[in-house]
């Protein structure tokens, strides 16, 4: 069992299902016998704003917030938000990001442009970078809405937690009728 506290940050846009994904992560770590803390902001941020959720696990976790620059994994649901939160990541940290762009209001209104080439810019600073076709693989698993589970699978590969705990957490947190699709989506992500 790892003695060190592992720090994961989930970032994206309000409404993308980030909170559920962070709950599945936390549940997995608890099942694996670790102390777990997670933190995020609800309220205003739900209305399409930028969202960041902190999840930490280890033998004993103090702060629910990941100290800046100490993130082990940045788990991105959207490209620009992933880029925005790079300073939270430690040097040599991993980035797993969904290949998805969601335009903020200033871009929708044509007042600003969505920044280009973000994936390359992230990869240049963090070589352990995985760009995931979340939607494509979710469709392959049988439901577009399982994109987050694909990403979860991809993240799981970077953590030293046995596969059984991931599946147990999925069983607990995902509605029974969606379980098969989510198991498949998780596997597709884990194989990346």
């Amino acid at each position, binding site marked *: 069992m790892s003695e060190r506290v592992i720090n994961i940050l989930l970032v994206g*846009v309000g409404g993308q299902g980030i909170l559920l994904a962070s*709950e599945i992560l936390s549940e997995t770590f*608890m099942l694996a016998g670790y102390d777990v803390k997670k*933190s995020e902001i609800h309220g*205003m941020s739900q*209305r*399409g704003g930028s969202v960041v959720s902190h999840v930490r696990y280890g033998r004993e*976790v103090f702060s*629910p917030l990941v100290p800046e*620059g100490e993130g082990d994994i940045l788990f991105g649901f959207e490209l620009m938000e992933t880029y925005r939160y790079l300073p939270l990541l430690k040097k040599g940290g991993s980035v797993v990001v969904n290949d998805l762009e969601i335009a903020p209001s200033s871009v929708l209104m044509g007042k600003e442009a969505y920044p280009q080439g973000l994936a390359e810019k992230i990869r240049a600073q963090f070589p352990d970078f995985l760009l995931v076709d979340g939607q494509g693989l979710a469709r392959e698993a049988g439901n577009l809405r399982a994109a987050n589970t694909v990403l979860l699978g991809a993240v799981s590969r970077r953590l030293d937690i046995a596969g059984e705990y991931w599946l147990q957490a999925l069983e607990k947190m995902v509605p029974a009728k969606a379980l098969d699709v989510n198991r498949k989506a998780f596997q597709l992500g884990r194989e990346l």
Partner: protein
Amino acid sequence: MREILSGNEAIARGAYEAGVKVASAYPGTPSTEILENIIQYKEIDSSWAPNEKVALEVGIGASFAGARALVAMKHVGVNVAADPLFTLSYTGVKGGLVLVTADDPEMHSSQNEQDNRNYAKFAKVPMLEPADSQECKEFTRLGLELSEEYDTPVFLRTTTRISHSKSVVQLAEPVTGLPVPALVKNAAKQVMLPSNARVRHPLVEDRMLRLAEAANSMAINRLELRDTRVGIITSGVCYHYVREVFPDVSTLKLGLVHPLPMDLIRRFAAAVDRLFIVEELDPFFEEQIKAQGIAVSGKDFISLCGELTPERILTAFAGQGIIPESTTVQAATLTQVAQESLPGRPPNMCPGCPHRGVFYVLNRLKAYVTGDIGCYTLGFLPPLSAMETCVCMGASIGNASGVVKAVSEEERKKVVAVIGDSTFCHTGINGLMDMVYNKVPATVVILDNRITAMTGRQDNPASGHTLSNEATYRVDLAELCRVLGVQHVRVVNPFDLEETEKALREEMERPETSVIITDKPCVLVKRTGVFLRGPLYAVDPEKCTGCRACLKIGCPAIQWLPDEGVRGLSYIDPTLCTGCDVCRQLCKFSAIGRAK
């Protein structure tokens, strides 16, 4: 059994395990989920009150009848509940009463970041402050026990990082054998006539002295000696931040933050070489401890503003050259990642939000809008940009009256108060009563979307349902305004821009109090049959001239494609469009129509 619970979920669980019978609250971030979780325990009568004052009064009644009660609110809610609170301090309780105040340092979702620890001192009420979810659960129960033991209400103070952080909690079985509530007459203790209150006040002072003494040996005030060169007094989530960044320093973790255990603090001060205090917002501990002649510092280098974080604490100590020698963390390790500026991502009203068209029209009419607390406060943001004030719950109507009284007859016509259904029921009604009673010629728009939307769609007296989703009487807002004396009340469809504009123009022109009620529901209302999705709309690229008129409502479903067509085209995202029809009315070229 172990579960991962948020602070709010753990407080709800704690209430259940401690045998709470009655719970009441008004929703407010970050406190809302407490009642939303308590509702799962059928043993507890839990309800939404129209405001925090009523919620506390319900709790007081239950306590007087001998039941354990829990009342929850956000920090500013305690301002509303302060009137009963200060006298409850004198009456004391019968059944234990815990008042949860969920503070919001950093103002993640609030209009100010007042430090409600000051209320504990001001109202002479003890206050507990948990540092994680396990403590949220335990302190809820402890608070109820202390409440009964010391005949006092007890504050349970959380902050956003406690309310909304999740951590592992060990569950327990509920207590049994609590006294059965019943009517017991005890008027001298509960009727606060001056003669009775004068008897109660010395008892309040005595109780706080006894608590201060007992605090020195309470297990929740935890002295942890490690390296004794540096000692830090702290509480709540800051305790964990301190342990994170300075794992080897000695700490005094306060679980009871009012009254303070001064003997214990003196012992700690004597055991360490240098003493610091790490507390968010006000120097609440620091001032009291300094007043005892104990040498300590904190707020001379830690900000009074905003929440603390591990790196803010580290940076504050490093900036003073006083990083404790024994720390294992170095401020220099904070990495710097190369970054350019990115477009911001502010929150926005949802696609299909019934508020959007109203603010578009108010902007067009150059109205001076006094605003209020709710999703519609987002009407301040561009491109709608139609709000000039937002002070507190219910303030819009009183603010409008004051503005009208101050300005010229011509300018008065521009003044419009905008308030939601839940906020109107909360504290807007008195403002309207004043406006019509004092014949103020302003216009009030009640944005009735049938839900308390901003906090995550909670029911309220105008929604027709209770916290337990049971159908109930629904306040008829139009009739209510009429019985208050408003002679001009009209109901409009806010998706019909022409009708909305006509109503606003006419009522703004009228030299009398008038009320316009919009009657379309929030898109987030889950109850079937309330919000109905319309047919999808699409932009015909042949007809779109790229005039950008449809972008002026800031709908997240409409995107400007600068590289399409001759000078760019608008595009409607079919996965986001709800068919509200507002954008179609803005297009002079009939380019927006039902999707084929």
